[in-house]
């Protein structure tokens, strides 16, 4: 059934479905804000969207060697990454926060991260930020936030540094956890494509601009946060 023509019509997005509301599993389907944006991009290009669910840092590598066309996984833009891939206009301003155990807050303040055991997602912007800016006792690198949350509940780590929206999802589902007041740093998410893939980048940029204009992105958020 799949001729060569159809193959060319496929648009592949790489993501890591452990980052609600941006991307997460619903039944056996990957959904979320990023996926809605990806669908809009595919639609406007007239291609069929295929979602590859990988580890976060695996996805970023996959876009570099062309295994996927683009990555939509709450990817933060930074200088290091710009050297090896191209980024679209950002579609969200996010802030990174600190999640702690409510009953037993080992961290009092967002400024107070030195000498703490900090959980992050491996390859996530917070991983690098903490490594570069904090004198942590230990950085524990997880592939899944769920495992980090479990460890935080069990007191094996002192806090998790992560994006605000997923953090809100996290504390909503776990009474024992809380977000500290204040933000750690600001951050912009964008879609990553292979370095030099100008054609696709332009296409993506125009779709994102259009979505922003139509207020669609807020709509997407509403859809995916109201569920919990």
């Amino acid at each position: 059934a799949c001729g060569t023509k159809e193959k060319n019509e496929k648009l592949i997005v790489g993501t890591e479905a452990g980052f609600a509301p941006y991307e997460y599993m619903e039944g056996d389907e990957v959904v979320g804000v990023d996926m809605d944006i990806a669908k809009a991009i595919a639609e406007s290009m007239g291609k069929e969207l295929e979602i590859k669910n990988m580890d976060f840092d695996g996805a970023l590598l996959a876009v570099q060697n062309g295994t996927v066309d683009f990555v939509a996984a709450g990817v933060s833009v930074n200088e290091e990454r710009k050297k090896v891939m191209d980024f679209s206009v950002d579609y969200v301003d996010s802030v990174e926060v600190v999640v702690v155990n409510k009953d037993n807050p080992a961290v009092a303040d967002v400024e107070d991260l030195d000498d703490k055991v900090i959980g992050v997602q491996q390859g996530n912007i917070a991983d690098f930020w903490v490594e570069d800016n904090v004198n942590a006792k230990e950085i524990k690198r997880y592939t899944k936030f769920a495992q980090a949350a479990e460890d935080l509940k069990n007191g094996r780590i002192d806090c998790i540094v992560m994006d605000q929206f997923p953090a809100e999802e996290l504390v909503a589902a776990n009474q024992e956890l809380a977000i500290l007041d204040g933000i750690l740093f600001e951050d912009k998410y964008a879609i990553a494509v292979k370095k030099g893939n100008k054609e696709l980048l332009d296409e993506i940029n125009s779709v994102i601009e259009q979505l922003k204009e139509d207020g669609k992105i807020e709509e997407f958020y509403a859809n995916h946060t109201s569920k919990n």
Partner: protein
Amino acid sequence: MAYLDGLKVTLLISFMAILLGIAIGVVVAILKVASSNYKIKWLTRICNIYINIIRGTPLMVQLLIIYNLIFNSRNTNELVIGAVCFGINSGAYVAEIIRAGIESIDKGQMEAGRSLGFNYIKTMRLIILPQAVKNILPALGNEFIVLIKETSVAGVIAVTDLTKAAQYVGSRTWDILPPLIIAALCYLVIVMGLSRLLSVFERRLSKGDRH
């Protein structure tokens, strides 16, 4: 439903991988046995290098290397990728299974064949291999069971197998233990079911022919 899809992926990858593993294993085993018999050192050495590298490094590391080294084409199906990675790994183990199967046959059989006037290859084909199959098949069944368990690390290369499916269910509900236990039970049922099947099959094989 997520479990079912994951389970399907697990089983499909294991199955395709064992087929590929058998293909590689047969070739490597025959090359190795024949080259050591006819003293072609370099060929024996190549076979041994492949076997030693695969058996000397962790599956997970192999998986990551093979995946990043070989697959740069975007159109490859994830099942195919998984099957190829695990197949390359399994080939080394299958080769050793087959070699052991051949060597388990009493050397009197080779001598009896040769002394009737058969050459080496004909003795292999008519006398040794038909007997070796009885030892090889159960071991291959076992290797298949091992593969089913090993594919649980396939998650690192973007394949959503049973283990990864369970992890994602846990990510969504923020309660990671129950899905893992469900996955463990799935594996247990499959593995023990296959083991039982295998031992029935083995008993059948050995019944007709005790020597």
